[in-house]
Every structure is written in structure tokens, then in C-alpha cells.
């Protein structure tokens, strides 16, 4: 019979193992994390882009803008020193040498997504306004990729 205490200690042992395994992965593979996060942004942008070519749906707009809005804070911490050396990394060296400009774009992305969320929360009434808000968000993608992302073949 497994007692509550044993199952508890088993769980904590498993947790400890999991943390041992997973934390170095997080710390040592920021490149993978960055790619995953950027792909999630792509998915959300795609959902919004398709929606806008189809029928306006404020809920799709809001939900996806919220996902992107959470990105800048996470992204800021994902560029530890040396993580530009990974051959899979598309991060340009300027992220490390000209950090202020990079952070500024992330802040602008946060502000522009927040503004787009506010428009989306107006429901159908926000439809006409949302296109412009989406455009402002998209500009951040471009300006960041222009300076801070290397030309790269997809893997």
C-alpha cells in the first residue's frame, strides 16, 4: 500500500528530477525558447490576419492580441550572453551591443498590443479601428527584424 506520505515524497522526488532536467534545458537552450515564442506570435498574427480577410471577430482579435501582449516581458529575459553563438540562432549581435533600441521596440510592441486589445474590447464597434491598430503592431515585427534578426534560412 502506498501511503499519502510516500506518494507525496515520490511526487516531490519526481518534481526534483523534473526540475533538475528541465531547468538546465531552459537555461542552456534559450534559442529554442525564443523560436517557440516567436512561432506563437506568428500563429496569433496569422489568426488575426486570416480573420481580417474573412469576417471581423472581436474575440479572435482580443484573444490573440493578449497572447502577443505577454511576449515582450518574456522575450526580454531570453537573450543571455553567449546565446548568439548557437548556429540555429537568428539573433543579430546588435541585441547585445545595442540593447536599448531592442528594448524600446519591445516596449512599443507592448503598448501597441495593449491599444489593440482596447480596440478589440469594443466588440463589433471597434472593427474599423482595428485595422490601424493591427498595422501598428505589425510595424514592430518589421522594425525589430530589420535590425535585430539575421537573414536566415528556415530550419
Amino acid at each position, binding site marked *: 500500500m502506498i501511503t499519502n506520505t510516500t506518494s507525496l515524497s515520490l511526487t516531490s522526488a519526481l518534481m526534483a528530477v523534473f526540475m533538475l532536467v528541465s531547468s538546465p534545458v531552459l537555461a542552456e537552450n534559450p534559442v529554442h525558447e525564443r523560436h517557440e515564442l516567436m512561432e506563437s506570435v506568428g500563429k496569433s498574427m496569422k489568426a488575426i*490576419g486570416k480573420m481580417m480577410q474573412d469576417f471581423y471577430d472581436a474575440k479572435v482579435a482580443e484573444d490573440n492580441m493578449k497572447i502577443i501582449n505577454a511576449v515582450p516581458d518574456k522575450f526580454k529575459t531570453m537573450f543571455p550572453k553567449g546565446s548568439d553563438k548557437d548556429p540555429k540562432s537568428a539573433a543579430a549581435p546588435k541585441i547585445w551591443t545595442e540593447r536599448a533600441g531592442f528594448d524600446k521596440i519591445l516596449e512599443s510592441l507592448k503598448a501597441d498590443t495593449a491599444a489593440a486589445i482596447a480596440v478589440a474590447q469594443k466588440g463589433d464597434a471597434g472593427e474599423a479601428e482595428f485595422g490601424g491598430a493591427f498595422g501598428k503592431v505589425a510595424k514592430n515585427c*518589421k522594425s525589430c*527584424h530589420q535590425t535585430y534578426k539575421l*537573414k536566415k*534560412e528556415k530550419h
Partner: protein
Amino acid sequence: MKKILLSLVVAALAGGGIFYVLTLPGQISVDELESFKNLKANSENGRYMFYAGGCASCHAKPAKNKCDEPNYTDAFDLSGGRCLKTPFGTFNVPNISPNQKLGIGSWSHSDFILAMRKGVSPGGKHYYPAFPYTSYQKMTSQDLVDLQAFLGSLAPKAVASLPHDLKLPFRFRRGLGLWKRLYLASAPFKNDPSLDTQLNRGRYLVEGPGHCSECHSPRDSFGGIITARKFGGSKALEGKGYIPNLTPHKDGIADWSAKDIAYSLKTGFMPDYDSFGSSMVKVQENMAHLTDADRAAIAAYLKSLKPIARKK
């Protein structure tokens, strides 16, 4: 001994003579010039060609005075000043604003056509192929005349161009005469009768003004495009990174529909909604000024290219 010396001198003179002849800067024929005289310049079409040709990508004054960044705030400020750092050395992009002394304001039609078709300056010197005359050479006479008229309508800028800073063998411009014999087509570009109107238009925009192959193809050690791998992607010559394969191979754009290509050129979003980066940002912004029909033609032509695997 004297005989050997003499024959060496003769050989050197003959060699020099051959080099001299082989590297003579090209000229525009009298007939070609005559054909230009009857053309009436249309500055609006010139503006369109300015976008199709991406002149600003290199010649616009760089933003924040950072010469190695592919960014500018005013596409119509053509003072130059961008620097292209390549394995051959650094190319400093010149002023092409209509300033009479420091830009190209004093250029005649034939000066402009000589530069765009033969890569030769009004003073009779070879231009380096960092200026993509290998592609611009394919532009129609009408489009060239229109483009010159549009450039002439912009604000003159009193900014002196910087000399290039190149590595040794490449410093000798005269040698470019040989380069051009190898890599610059001498025949005029013509529509391909086997292609329909849309594909011919796409081919013209891609191969001519758009000069897509100049970045998207690998080059040999002399800096000439490797024809068999044209459009197949390349390690970036300028800056860092890898420039993607534009052919419909699985390494390239096989899974992009023609609609995806046209949409990406209009909006900057690729099919997975990743957005274009680096120097492609400004290229796309220029392409966004073209008509939907022209973007569709570009897309159709790219989809018709022979699939080439990316070079590992």
C-alpha cells in the same frame, strides 16, 4: 640575351595591349542613343520604376547615420552614405540626388544609360557591380528615361560621395572590364515568346529592375553570380546571415503559393506570419508600391523557376 629581353618587352607590350583592349569601358552605340531621343519621359512611371528598382535601398541616406544598417527615413533623400561591407572590401554608396556637382544632376541621357546598361561612369570609368547594372541593363529604354526624369525631380543634396575602400586586386577598376566580359550580358533583354504576358512581366520585374538575383544567388570568388545556382540562396555578401532560396524547391518556396508570395510582398508577412527582416524589410516596402497585378506576375515567375537545392 638581348633577344630574350626584347621578346619579353614585346610580350609585355602585347599583353598590356590585349589587357587594354579587353578592359575598355563599354559605350552606347549611336543607334542606341538615337532611339532614346524619341522617347518622351513619364516621371510617374519613373517613380514606379524607382520602387521596382529599389534605388533607395542603397542610395537613401541611412537612418541614424549608421552606414551598415539597411534602414532610412526618407526614401527620396538620395545623398548616399550607406556602406556595404563585403569580402571584397567596403563599398560606399554614392550620392545620386540631382545635385549638379555632387550628384547626378548634370548627367545627360546618354550618361545615365551608359551607367545603367554598361556600368560605366560619365568619365569613362567602370563601376563596381555592387551597383547591380548586370540587372538594370535589362530595363527597357522607356523605363530608364522615365526613371532618370523622376530622379531629376527629387531634392538635390550637397553631400560628397566617399571613395570605396577595397582590398588589393579589386582596387583596380580597369580589371572590371574583364569581369564584365564574363558576367555582363551584352545582348539586350527581350521577352521570351514561349511565356505568357504575365510570366514575361514577372520575368522583367524580377530579372531587371527588381534585381532579386543579385542578393539571392551565390557568387564565385570573382564576385560573379554562379548561373547554375541563380536564385538558389546564398550566404549574405553584405552583413551576416543567409539569404533564402527563391526557387520552388523544398529548401525554398515550394510550399508557398503564388498568392502567398504576392501577399508577402504586399504586407511583409510570410505564410507563417513571420515578418521579413534585415534588408528585405525595405525591399518589401518598395514592392508594396507596385500594383497587385505586378506582384502577382513576380510571384508567378518565381514559381516558374527551376527548383534548386540550397547549397550547404
